[in-house]
């Protein structure tokens, strides 16, 4: 326990504390930091311009999360329904992209979405002769990149509860007169919600702070908070404001994670609460 805490302190708490401290100082005239206390940086975070970027980031991350959950759950469902001995093989393929570098995976999408990229060539091959569709450097490209990169998390998170689900529960539901759709809605889905929630929080938290994907696939035109923080530190040289933005981002992530933890706690605590006297 103690070594773990030491690691956590050295690699997590101290850097965060340093960044947090930065946020309370002024920006120097020629970049750098002027060590006088101020709350201005946090005030600026709520400026409509920057608040708008926060909202935009949340919207893009939310859309990516929704799409990733739908595709990921369907994939996990299909894998859990496959013959037992094939399931590890399918899971291996689902996780395979993780074995390559995030940047390379994202660059691959540029190759796909380019004006004269693979998708355009494929369309041409099918006889399309018009203008090549503009796909790269759009919000859609950013969302596609985020979904693609984080989908394996959702598949794994959803597969766990799906594969543990007793198949006789679905059979019992059918036996009692429920259609396949009702069985899914009333038995399978409620019992696998914890997996969906875990996967969704993962995608959302990783997406909202992402700066690589919007930079490469959004062409810098669709700024998300991650890009903004990056710019403040490395381009605008306004470290204090960058730190304040980073803290706001961390606050949002913690909020989402806490909400999920509370919900998961309530879901499992609900049953144990009334526990106590099980004899009789």
């Amino acid at each position, binding site marked *: 326990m103690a070594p773990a805490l030491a690691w956590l302190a050295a690699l997590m708490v101290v850097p965060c504390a340093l960044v947090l401290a930065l946020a309370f100082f002024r920006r120097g005239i020629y970049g750098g930091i002027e060590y006088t206390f101020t709350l201005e940086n946090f005030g600026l975070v709520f400026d409509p311009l920057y608040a708008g970027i926060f909202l935009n980031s949340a919207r893009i991350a939310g859309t990516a999360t929704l799409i990733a959950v739908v595709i990921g759950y369907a994939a996990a469902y299909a894998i859990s329904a496959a013959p037992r001995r094939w399931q590890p093989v399918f899971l291996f393929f689902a996780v395979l992209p993780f074995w390559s570098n995030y940047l390379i995976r994202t660059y691959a999408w540029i190759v796909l979405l380019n004006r004269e990229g693979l998708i355009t060539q494929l369309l041409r091959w099918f006889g399309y002769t018009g203008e090549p569709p503009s796909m790269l450097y759009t919000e859609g490209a950013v969302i596609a990149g985020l979904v693609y990169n984080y989908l394996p998390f959702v598949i794994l998170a959803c597969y766990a509860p799906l594969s543990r689900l007793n198949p006789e529960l679905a*059979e*019992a539901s059918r036996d*009692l*007169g429920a259609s396949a759709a009702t069985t899914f809605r009333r038995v399978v889905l*409620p019992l696998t919600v914890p997996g969906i929630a875990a996967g969704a929080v993962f995608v959302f938290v990783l997406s909202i702070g992402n700066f690589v994907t919007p930079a490469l696939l959004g062409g810098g035109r669709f700024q998300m908070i991650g890009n903004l923080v990056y710019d403040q530190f490395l381009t605008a040289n306004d470290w204090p404001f960058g730190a304040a933005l980073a803290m706001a981002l961390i606050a949002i992530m913690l909020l989402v994670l806490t909400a999920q933890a509370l919900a998961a706690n309530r879901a499992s605590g609900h049953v144990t609460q*009334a526990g106590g006297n*099980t004899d009789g």
Partner: protein
Amino acid sequence: MSEPRTLLAIDHVSKNFGRVTAVDGISLDIRENEFFALLGPSGCGKTTLLRMLAGFETPNDGRILLDGRDIAKTPPNKRPVNLMFQSYALFPHMSVRANVSYGLEMERLPAAEIRSRVDAILATTELVPFADRKPEQLSGGQKQRVALARALVKRPRLLLLDEPLGALDKKLRGAMQLELKRLQHEVGITFVIVTHDQEESLVMADRMAVLKDGRLLQCDTPHAIYEHPADRFVADFIGVMNFVPGQAAADGVVATNGARISGKVPATLSPGASAVASVRPERIRLFPSVETANRITGTVDALAYHGLDLQLHVRTPLSPKPFLVRVTADAADRRPVSSGDQVELGWDAADVRIFAE
């Protein structure tokens, strides 16, 4: 009494999974309001047959007629048949009441009717105090009753029970056997139970079918199957039986030591064929006072006291395995025997069953 009506007719039903034949041309009639048992060792096809009745498997061949209508291809949610799963398969995220209501909600019945029917079945199964509990807060016996209530509340034409008492301990099992029988009588629904426990089916069933390797060996009342087993396997599987291997003769079996066991030889057995004579332990008399057709002297190997009776293992020249003899406590008191004693055994020709080996 009027002729019992056939509710379910299983007509030459077969099912194979790849190259494995699980059910091989079984035909059976199950009557209205009867308690029917499908009995057999594991892998005999009884569970596959049950799953075909529930609609989870489709036969490769044959028909399943419920009230004269072929339901072999009807999906499980469209047939008036309910299954009580071996694992109970209670919905873990729903309360006892929600579990029991589920099936009626699927029928889109008015809320008031659902409520009154659920209340009634919860009362019948003595689950009212547990209505708001989740399955994980129930004991094994309570879960079993919830599973039963959930199936019964639908008022199915046929209730299927897959090893319903398998998860319970021995004492509770005995009580639940009688409880199930009482319930079946009370609700007036036809029960088909699958079990590997021959004692369970003898106690509960009105009629039973013995299955082996996907085939039906015998279908009759427990009494008829116990007293007149169709073949050596059934004789061995149901209850306890002493076997004397030998060769068929005109009026019995000649054992390997040359002794003759008198009994009625089935017409299908030609003299000289390999045969086995058998007799139930409770039909053998110790030191018979009257003349019996069959008589042998042996040595007591071991004794087991069971309270109600005494079980003796008696080594005889008739068979390599010792004879099992059940003597009532009363008879044992009159003439005590102990291990190593020479005893005389005797039994009537009418109590001998002879089968092809």
